[in-house]
Each structure stands twice: as C-alpha cells, then as structure tokens.
C-alpha cells in the first residue's frame, strides 16, 4: 500500500488494511510504503499515519524517498494497494475504501478477500481515494 504521509483520506485505507490483516491472519504479508516526494525533509513521513500503520500487526513500513518505489508500482494515489501472490502475480490493485476517507464495506476489501479465499482469479481493480503521491498525477 502506497501512502502519502499527509493524506487525510488514507487513514481509512490503513483502517481497512488493519481489518484485512485481522481478517486474514498469516495469509497476507503487508508492506506500506510512505512516499516522500523529492525535496521534503527527512522526517516528513513521520506522521500520525506512520504511527497508525506501525501499530498494525504484520506490517512492514518503509519510506520511499523521492517516490521511486511508488513509481515502480505505478502508484499515483495515496492508498493505492496492490496484492501479489507468492509467485509475484498481481492479484489485486486499487483502493480498499468505498469513498474518500470512508471506512467500511468496500469493493477493494471484498475483492482481496475473495481473491485470497478463492485462490486466484482474474485480477480485480477498484478506485483509489486519496491524495496524489507525487503531484504529477491526480489522485482518484
């Protein structure tokens, strides 16, 4: 999951991630990348969102200085989530909130659960609600 450290809507995405991690313990290995655009101070990503994410069990955090990592995953909007299987196959890509900053049932979470439960199907995609990670691309 790519997170803009200051995106207000991304808190809902982290909450949904927490639910997913709780719902599927041991199934998912989650990695949250806090994208730091170029030119920002070192601790620019040390926000509430960081501390919230750090609190989710089984999560690894990383800081993406300059946004290279994000770009590698083609993420432009904070909260964009990509799920891969053990084989590196993309199972899911998109947002896991139903609206901007809106926790609760949503298509992204349902798709992930379904993918993981069914054991593989066509990759699903859902809209992502969040801020633009690097500015050059508008968030959904």
């Amino acid at each position, binding site marked *: 999951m790519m997170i*803009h450290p*200051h*995106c*207000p*809507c991304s808190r809902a995405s982290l909450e949904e991630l927490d639910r997913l991690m709780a719902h599927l313990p041991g199934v998912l290995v989650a990695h949250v990348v806090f994208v730091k*655009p*170029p*030119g*920002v101070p070192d601790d*620019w990503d040390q926000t509430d969102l960081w501390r919230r994410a750090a609190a989710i069990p089984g999560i690894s955090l990383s800081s993406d200085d300059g*946004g290279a990592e994000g770009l590698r995953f083609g993420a432009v909007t*904070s909260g964009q989530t990509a799920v891969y299987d053990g084989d590196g196959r993309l199972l899911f890509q998109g947002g896991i909130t*139903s*609206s*901007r*900053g*809106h926790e*609760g*049932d949503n*298509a992204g979470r349902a798709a992930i659960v379904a993918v993981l439960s069914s054991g593989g199907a066509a990759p699903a995609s859902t809209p992502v609600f969040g*801020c*633009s*990670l*690097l*500015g*050059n691309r*508008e*968030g959904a």
Partner: protein
Amino acid sequence: MSNELDELIARRSAELFRAHRQRIYERTDRLFAGLMLFQWLAAIAAAYWVSPLTWMGAASRTHIHVWAAIFLGGATTLVPVGLAIGWPGRVFTRHAVAAGQMIMSALLIHLSGGRIETHFHVFGSLAFLAFYRDWKVFVPATLLVATDHFLRGVYWPQSVYGLLTPSPWRWLEHAAWVAFEDTFLINACLQSVREMWDIACHRAELEVARQKTEETVLERTAELKASEARFRTLSAASPVGMFRTDADGRSVYINARWAEIAGIDEAEAVGDGWQRAVDPADRAAVVARWTAAVHEKREDEQEFRMRTPRGDVRWVHARSKPILSEDGRVTGHVGTIEDITARRRAEALKAGQKHVLEVLATGASLPDVLAVLVRTIEEQAPGMQCSVLCLEGERLRHGAAPSLPEDYNRAVDGITIGPAAGSCGTAAHRRERVIVEDIQRDPLWTAFRDLAGRHGLRACWSEPIFSARGHVLGTFASYYREARGPSDDEIALIETAAQLGGIAIERKRAEAEAAEARDQALEAARLKSQFLANMSHEIRTPMNAIIGMTDIALDTKLDSEQRECLETVKLSAGSLLSLLNDILDFSKVEAGRLDLERVAFSLRDSLGATLRTHALQAHQKRLELACDVAGNVPDALLGDPGRLRQVVANLVGNAIKFTDEGEVVVRVGVEQLAADDVALHVTVSDTGIGIAREKQEMIFGAFVQVDGSMTRRHGGTGLGLAIASQLVELMGGRIWVESEPGRGSTFHVTLRLDRAPEDGARGERIDAAALRGRRVLVVDDSATSRRILVEMLTAWGLRADGVAAGAEALAALGGAHDGQVAYDLALVDVEMPDMDGPALVRRVRAEPLFAAIPVVLLGAPGQRATDVEATGYLTKPVVASHLLETIQAICEKRPQDIRPRAVVAWTGRPLHVLLAEDNAVNRKVAVRLLQKRGHTVVAVEDGRQALRALDRERFDVVVMDVQMPELDGLEATEALRARERIQGGHVPVVALTAHAMKGDRERCLDVGMDAYVSKPVDAEELFTTLERVVTGEPQAQGSAPIPRTDGAVLDRVALLERADHDPELLLDLVETFRVESERLLADIRDALARRDADALTRPAHALKGALATLAAGAAAEAARRLEAIARLGDMQPADDAYATLERELRRLEPELAAVAEPERSANAG
C-alpha cells in the same frame, strides 16, 4: 355573566396560546439560528480538522471538503439563519429552517461519503424541529429527505449510502424511518400543542381570576382611599383633635387640630411619640389609663393636661373607642381630643372668684382678700405677677402684691397718679386700661424704670378698679418678665380681677362703715336698754309702794268712800303696771329681743297658778272660773312657762273682763301625742259679749280694740292680744277666735311643746291608786265646774256624784247613808244660791248621821271661812294636784283626826323670815304682808346686814332684794351658799327684783337663790313661793331640790319641817318610804343586772326624790349620782354608785328608826 367570563377566558386563552406558540416559534427560530451557525462552523472545523488539505506530492492545497463546508454549508445555513433573525416566528422562516437543516444533513451525508452515521443528523434535525411544536415543518423536511435520498440514490448512490450499488428501495427505507420518527414527533407536537392550549386556558383563567381579584382589590382600595380621603378631609376640617392608633395603641394618625393642640406634628406623634405631648405631671396616669383601656379593648375618656414644646399648658378632654373588624377583632382605636382649656380656666377662675368672695365673706382683712385675689389670678396665668394698689386721694397705696419684690412694693407705695405716672398711676388718672409692653422703652415709665429693670420686670398692664358708682378705687396691675402685650384671654382675666378687686374694696369699705354704724347703733341700743331697765325699776318701785300701801290701807278700817278711793287707786296702779308690762313686752317683741326660755315645767301647776291669780277677779264678777285639763295631757313639758302663763292669763283676763255673767273655762286637750312632744289645744271660753265676725281678725293686731267705747268701759291698752298672738307665734303655735256677739267667745291656741321626763316625786304625789273606789260628793251650782270635778275624780278611780245645791247635797248624803254607803268626802262650792258652802257645812256638822264626813270647801282666794268646821279649803279653779293631795290626806286619816294640812292653801306655820330690802317703803310693805300671815320678820337694808343676821340667828327663809347697796342680793346669796358649803345647812332664798329682763331669773338661780318673785310683790305669789321653797316642793323646773346637807345622813329638822311637825305624817312618810324604797331598790338591782340604763333611770330618780323629801342628803346624793350615770348611758361606774347608795341607805336606816320610834311610841301611848 358566566358566558361573558367564559368568552373572556376563551378569548384570552386563544391569545395566550397564540402568544405562547409564537414565542416558541421565535425562540426555536433563534435556537436554530444559533444551532445552524454552530453547525456550520462545526462543519467547517470538522472539515478542516479531518481533511484540511489535499496533497499532491509535496504540494498541498485546501481540501475541497473545507471549501464545501464553508460555501455549501454557508449557503444552506445563512438563508434560514437570516430569516430566523430577521423574521422570527414566521411560517416561512421555520420552513426555511427545516429545509436548510435537511439540506445540511444531505450535505453532511454527502461529504462524509454517505456514512450511515451522518444519516442520524437527519433524525436529530427532525427532533430539533419538533421544538417548533408545529407538525407542518416535518412535511417539507421529510419530503426533502425523501427526495434527496431518492434522487441521489438513483444518480449518486455512493454520496448518500456510501455504496455504489445500493438497493433501489433504499431511499424508501430511509424515508420510512424518517416518517416513523415523524409519527412520534408529530404526535408529540400535537400533544404539546394541546398542553400549551391547556396551559393557556389555565393561565387565562388565572389571569381572569387575578384580573377580577385585582379589579376587586382596586375597587376596594379605591373605596378605602376614598374613605381615607373623606376621613382625612373631615378630620382636617374638624375643630376637635382626632387620632387613630393600631391595635397596640400606638398612634398611626393625628389630624391637624390634634397637632395644633399638642404643638407637635404627625411624625412626632406617631407610635408612642404622642406621650411626650402629655404634661409630665399627668403623663404617668394618662399612659397607665390608656394602656389599660387598650389592653381591655374598651372605650376610654379622660381629662388631662398637654404641654406644647413652647411650654403652653392646655387641658384636653380625650375620648377613644376601639375599632372592630367584621370578625370582632380590635384593629385599632380612634378618638378625639377637645381643647377644654377655656372651660377649665373659666371653672378655675370661677372657683377662684368664689374663693375670693368666700374669703371676703369670712371677714378677712382687705389685704388678705386682695392677696387671695392676686394669687388666684396668678394661678390662671403662669408667669404673671400681679399687684393691687388702692387709691387714697391722689395717691395709690399698696394693697397686695405677694409675688413682687418687697422693696419694689415699698417704692411704689404712695405714688401720685398722673398723666405719665407709670402704668398704674396713669391708668388711675385716665380711668382706663394702660398697656405698657416694654417698661424700658415706654415714655409713661420714668421714675421706677430702673427699679423695675433691676427686678426683671419688663411689661406692665394696669386695669383701673371702679366702684359700682364708677369711682376709681385703685388699680390691678399685671407684670411680665418679658416685653409683651396681653392676649384677649389675659385682658378678660385682668378685667375680672379688677371687678373682683372692686367688689372686695367696696365691700370692705362698706363693712367698715357698717361696723362703725353698728357700733353707734349698739351703743344707742345699749343706752336705750339701760334707760328702759332704769325706767322700769324707777317706775315699778313707786308703783310697788302705791299698790302695797293701798293693800295695807284697805286692810284697815275705812269708810266706804275711803275704801272706794283706795280701790280706785289700786285699780289705777294695776292698770298702769299692766300698761307698763305690755309696752315693755311689746317693745321687746317688736325688737326681736324677746327670747323664749326652754325649761322643764309642770303644765297643771303652771295653769293652776295662772288661774288662781284671776280667781279673785272672777269671783268679784261672780263668774265661774274653771280649768279642765284632759287626763291624757302630759304634765312635764319643756318650754317657757312664764310666756305660756302670760298668754293664758291674757286670754283669761280678757274673758273675765268682757264677761258679765256666766263662766270662763280653760280647757286643755291633746291634738297629737308623741314620745318626744305633744301638740296641745288650749281653749278659753267665756259667756261674754262676743266679738263681731268682721272684728275677729283685727283683735290680734296691735293697739286694736273692738271699739273705742270698750276701751273706755273695760280699760286696756289693746296690746294684750297682740302680744299673746306674737308669743304664740314665737312658740310655733297658732291663735284664733270663734265668737258670736252676745253668746260669748272661744279663743283657741295650739302649741307644740317638747315633753320632759315625768317627775318621779310628782308621780308619787298624785298616785291615786290608793283612792280607787272612794265616794265623793261634789256640790256646786256651776254645771261646768261640777262636771269638771266629777270627771277629774272619776278619772282617778273615785266614785263621784255631783249635785247643784245644798239641799240636794244633804239629801244625797242622807240617802247614801241609808244605803249603807257613806261618802268618804264632800267637795262643796262656797258660793251657791239658797244655801252657800259654809251654810251647808254647818248643816252637815249639825246632822249626826254624817257630821263626821270630811268637807272641803272650794272658793275664791280670801273666801276661807274660819267659822265652819271645814276639813280643808281649796282655791277655785281647783288645781288637780292640790285636789288629789287633799283627798289623799283626808282619806288616809280618820275623819275625826283630820286637821288642816300643809297641802291646803297655806300651812299656817309661822316662818322666821329674813327680809333684805334697801327701799324703806318696800321693806315696810313686805314686813307687813308677812306679819299679817303670822310670820316673824327680821328686816335688814343690804346684803351685808343680811349675812350678819344669818350669822346671828337661824331663819326659815330669806327674802332678798337683788339690787341693794354695799352687797347686793346676788353677792350676799353667793356668800351665804359658800358658807353653807363649809358649815352645812341650806336656807332658802327668794329673790325680789324689779328687773323684768330675760336673764334676771337665771342670774338669781345661778348664784343659789331658790325662787324668784317679781316686784311689785304680789302677795299670793310671794306666799305661794315661800311655801314652795320652805316645804321643798319642786321648783318650776319640776325637780325637787336636794337638801344641802352635804353628806349628813339625815337632816332631822328638815324632815320634821317636811312633815309640818306632824308626828303622824312623819311616821307615815317613813313607813311609805320603807315600802317604796324596797320596791325601787329591787327595780334598780334588776336594771343593773340587765345593764339597762333606761330602766335604771326611773327608779333611781324616784328614789332620789323620796330621799330628798326625807332630807336624807347623803343617800339622795348617791341616788342622784346613780341617776346621772343612768342618763349618760355609761353603765361602767353604776355598780360602784349602787354600792355607795346601799351603804348610805344602811347608814340612814337607824337614823330613820330613831326619828320614827318616838313618834310611834307617842301614838301607841
């Protein structure tokens, strides 16, 4: 009334409801205005807080939510808020609020991405809208929510439900939930509206009730205010002070008059402040009485003084009454005070005037009266100092000024009046009031200005004092210590003072003049009285000589011519004396100087003595003179016996004078008899010429005779009846005449006289019980005399028969003898036709059958026949007591032993008489008269010689002239009595005096004389008096004199004299005494045992009389003492007195036995 009230309530309820609802609308509008603004700001804040920025890499800008919150929220909020502020309470406002709120909900739902929680904003907003309590606001709100959900559910479901693919009926579900809530909210609104209506109705009812109550209260208040206003208006105009207090008696209101009287205002009087207006002298009593009246809730009324802060004192009359509420509680007191100062002052002034006049009437001196006047006026006007100056010539002299300084009074004493002589001098000069308000500045004051100033006198008002005739008598001045003029009251006061002063001065001057005139008149009267007395003496003395010597000459051998001449001389002298006495009496009556005596006397004795003096006169005219005193007439009376005798003598004298034949009868009857007094009716009837009816009224006037010819024929001054009439009037009685010309006259006299205690000795003397049943023959040709005698005898219990002639008498005596009933006694008239009294006696004595019968002759004085054996002789008219005593004396002895007794006209016992008389002629007359009676006489010329004669020899009696040289009769008698007190014994003294004035007799008796004979000496009177004093008969006062034996147990000589040296009588006396004394002592002991003073008096008195008769001096004195104790009513010393009496009686017994025994022996022998 009820409908109107209901309509009013309904109307008012609707108003209140609408107003209430409107207030709720407006309040809710304002609430929503605030709420929506808050909501807006909260939305902005929330948006800013949740998502302040939207990021694009490192760049950021304000989040769209923030802008949406600001602008969309503002658009949604500001319109309804503006309406709520600008048009609160309007329908469109609340509908706009409802719509705005719903839009806000929609926006919130949208901005939150359709989060379900935000849908509760809809429910919350609806709930808030319910605050309007207007169910209609839910209509647009609900429709808006339903429409929003429907439209957005169709076109943008994610914004409302947060879902991309919600159910197509999701909107309906949401709308149904809203409708569900609406149901409750609308119900709540309707319920609330109903409650609001109820509240409105209740409030309306309350309001109407309150309004009605207020109206009533206002109405009552208005009435109260009107009443209060009326009360205040009335009380303000009231001439009396008015006040009101609370239930505790504390003042809550006073009117203007109250404040004026007290001199304090209402604020000062409130509560207990009024008490300070009460004069301190009266305050405690007034407050105590007021407190009691308040406590007892009763009316009160009292008079007291109030003192104003200026010091003015006013008398008020206060009345108060409790105010009662409808339930009977005392809510306060209301009352009045009336200024009665003027009345009080007038009363005080009147009392003062009265006091002044009383002092004046008591004879106080003028300065004292004026001083009282000044003090009286000063009391009426505190601060005023007054003075009275009396005008003498042109100078004012000090009268009275007790409060002014002495030296000031001395200085102004004698000031000369003038046009500028101070206040008083000027007032007296001008004859008008002078008011000087400031002495220090007034030009009238010059001489005494400084002196007045030194004494602090500043104002002086002077009122002239006038006499009744308008002469100035002086001035009344009033001084004050401050410069001031008089008030009207003060002017009136000093005018009154001046009037009183005038009365006092004028009265005192008149008194002084009257006293001087009275002294002169008294001196003139004294000289006249002296002249009268001297004239009386000077005329009577030669008259005495003329009459006496004529009597003596008439007793010598004379030829008829000489006798006729001398009788004419005697008659003329008698007439002159009568005229002299009449004029003297009349002048005394006219002068009001004839005082009546009040002494005890015996009526029968007094009448008898009077009639005896006329017996000769009647006899000479051959008239029958009779006296008939009814048996029930009390004998012992109190009065003036001399004047009573004078009246009777005058009437009898007239009757005899104007009667040529027939009889003159004096009758005495009782009109009314009481324990203390008796109304007597005395008549004097004659068979004379009578008086014409038209003359009957005149004859009691002075100097009136029935006609002039009578005067010439019968003589007389015409004063007799006038004097008698005035005497009767003086004695409180009435006199009138009934007469028919030719048939005689009857003069009536009624008198009321007090009764005196009956004399015990007399009671003994006339005790007729022993005579009961004796037979007496009365022989008298006069039917009247016969009837009187028979009635008298019958009344005593004797059996009396009357016959008119000697022949009838002899027949009666004879008949009685044959009938074996002898007459015990015959009473025979001396003068009878055919056979006169002496002839009848001779016939009786010649008749063996009844020769021994006692016969008593009844005749005129001097008719006593010595040649017949009469047992006794009584002078006509017969005195009852004399007759009774004579009968007693005769019946208690055998007829053959009887001899003439002392009880007849004269004892015949020669007396040894000492005559003291300085006038040689009078002395000669008296000596001859006495010697003719068989007495021996020693004559001396004055009192000193008399005393020497008394030293030398013993006399039976002394006849003493009062007026003598050297030592007069009074002094000589005093000396004699003084000597007797030492030596014992008692020689009777009879006064001879020409003094006819009242008081002579008292003086004689006071010095110890025993009797009194007026000169010229009437032989009969002198001998009667001598007999009385020698035999110890009762005095005119009716009480037996106690022999002056001064402690002697028994005066044997006196006792023998009492018994006329008659042994039998002596024995009889002693025996009678023994029997009688036993009875009397028993009565005394009985009365002592009962401690009954009244019962003790009579026996003690009777015993005293008996002992006196026995000449038992010591015992008589003891009995007298016991009687005196009984009369005083204090029985304490009575036992001792009785013991003394018993002791004296034990001492007397052997003495009496010694006296009686020789007599008894002699009789036995």
